[in-house]
């Protein structure tokens, strides 16, 4: 077990009103549980406001939780000393969605990758450093001659490869990928997804793959956690998720994915309304107001995430009763 997330919560206090008098709490992440095993890719899927990006930031220790814990190889990351935290950052890296914004425009790309090596004192000589950079570039499909170029000289897909190279050069155990291919054209997206699978095998990495795109997650990940308004509503292996989704939200999400085959006429479950955190947080299940199968109990009691089948977790009062 590389990473364990236990009952993680992150609440943000905000103010509203003319003179900022009234405040309310945004429960961005409200009790999330999951695990990532060595060499495994866990997908975290959800739409805007579901809390997946906040969860990613908590795992990376970019923000601290309101309560709950994240364990790396059994130890709480929020209890790390400064040295241990630095070591953690080497072990848990990040790939961003916006490759342009995440690369310093005034640094040559070889230097961007080299900076990471310097901070963690990986290479002992200049030659060794250069060797590592060249090798990583080759692993991500970039020409060694491009080491001296600047980010703006590359296309979106190439910049994403540079971002991956930077994450890889520290030989991390786990990479958190936050929508790594959402900003890319379809043809380039396919290249980058293939690359990510290849390096996962080669470097024996684990991934926490955050995305709104279920098709992409299905291709890359082994297990999937579906989030809705701060809660983990379903979690299981990817085959189970797509073959027999149990949560009404998951079913709806899968049903509305457009299929490039015009002959497939599937039944879409079109959800009415929108996901509104404040409106939904009334005590019961947060999905109650949009759920077609809602019962009285759903409005009173918030369901717990429960293992209803082997390795298939669902937070729904109705799951497990004939699905």
């Amino acid at each position, binding site marked *: 077990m590389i990473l364990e997330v236990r009952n993680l919560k992150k609440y943000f206090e905000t103010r509203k009103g003319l003179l900022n008098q009234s405040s309310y709490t945004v429960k961005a992440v409200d009790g999330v549980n999951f695990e990532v095993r060595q060499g495994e890719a866990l997908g975290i899927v959800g*739409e805007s406001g579901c809390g997946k990006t906040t969860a990613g930031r908590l795992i990376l220790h970019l923000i601290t939780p309101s309560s709950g814990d994240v364990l790396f190889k059994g130890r709480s990351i929020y209890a790390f000393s400064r040295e241990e935290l630095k070591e953690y950052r080497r072990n848990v890296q990040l790939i961003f969605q916006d490759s342009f914004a995440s690369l310093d425009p005034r640094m040559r790309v070889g230097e961007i990758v080299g900076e990471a090596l310097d901070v963690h004192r990986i290479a002992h000589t200049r030659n060794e450093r250069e060797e590592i950079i060249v090798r990583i570039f080759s692993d991500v499909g970039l020409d060694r001659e491009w080491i001296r170029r600047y980010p703006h000289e590359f296309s979106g897909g190439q910049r994403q490869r540079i971002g991956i190279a930077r994450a890889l050069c520290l030989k991390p155990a786990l990479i958190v990928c936050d929508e790594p291919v959402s900003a890319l054209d*379809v043809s380039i997206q396919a290249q980058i997804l293939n690359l990510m699978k290849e390096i996962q095998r080669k470097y024996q990495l684990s991934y926490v793959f955050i995305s*709104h795109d*279920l098709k992409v997650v*299905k291709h890359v990940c082994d297990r999937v956690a579906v989030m809705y308004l701060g809660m983990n509503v379903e979690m299981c292996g990817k085959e189970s998720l797509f073959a027999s989704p149990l949560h009404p939200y998951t079913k709806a999400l899968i049903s509305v994915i457009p299929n490039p*085959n015009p002959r497939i006429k599937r039944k879409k479950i*079109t959800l*009415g309304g929108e996901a509104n955190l404040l409106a939904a947080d009334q005590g019961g299940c947060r999905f109650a107001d949009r759920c077609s199968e809602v019962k009285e109990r759903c409005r009173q009691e918030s369901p717990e995430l429960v293992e209803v089948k082997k390795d298939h977790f669902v937070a729904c009062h109705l799951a497990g009763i004939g699905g």
Partner: protein
Amino acid sequence: MSLTLDRNSRQDRSSNQGILLSIEHLAVRFSSRERTVHAVNGIDLSINDGEILGLVGESGSGKSVTALSIMGLIRWPGKITGGRILFKGEDLLGKSKREMRGIRGDRIAMIFQDPATSLNPVLTIGEQIAEILIYHKNLAKADALRKAEEMLDVVRIPNPERRLKEYPHQLSGGMKQRVMIAIALACHPELIIADEPTTALDVTIQSQILDLLKDLRNQYGASILVITHDIGIVAEMADRVAVMYCGKILGQGDTDSVLMNPAHPYISALINAIPKLDEERETLDAIPGTVPNLSKLPRGCSFSPRCKYAKEICFDKEPEARRIGKMIASCWLNG
């Protein structure tokens, strides 16, 4: 919640229709001191009455520039250098700016990708819809606001009377997009151009918006030009599809033919590159290489450097568009 079954009524629509819009040999270039980009490089495209046409392409394909050309919104450093855009027989490119202002919003309307930046932040929702009606239909403000409320209802926004007085920032992304659609529909245009209408929206909201657009087409009989990079969306919505690459249309035809039996390697490659829910594969069929520099297009077919079927002639001469099977494609293969 509603269950929607997509019915296959596409075949009925494609036959026996008038041509609403016909683009002939359109060319648009963008020039700077250093280089010239041929954003649209001689395209032929038509839209029939009451039809939904999907225009698909990746970045740099020229699809948005095509939309802006129809709307008369190309400005320096862009310039339309050739072709005609016939709207019910009249060439829009020959019209004055004033005439185009009369047509935009009234007979041809556009829905943009990012509703947050397309709505005026300092006007209320009601004012923005009413604006169109006052300008084009000469309605008095009170009548325009009444009609605006009707339009909000048409686009299925709950509590329309309250929304009229709200500002864009008070609405969610999905609501803002519905307001954009309301503005576009207000004067009952004959053609609606939707440029990536759901890209900025969550997939469950996207589903609502696409259903809405289809229902509105059925109700109002307007034609819709849907511009998108998402083939899934055109598969779901469009009667006919055209695929663009580097300023050219590589293939077009009815949706079923283009997507099930593409007569152009780029189109099949694009479809194959998409991860599918109903397929399990180790690697995706990625298209190697990248889109060429638009100011330095390769000789011959622009797709040839990335095409696994390319023959010598492909690198040498640009293929012409001709009928291959049930679609029109620009490719030297497929005799």
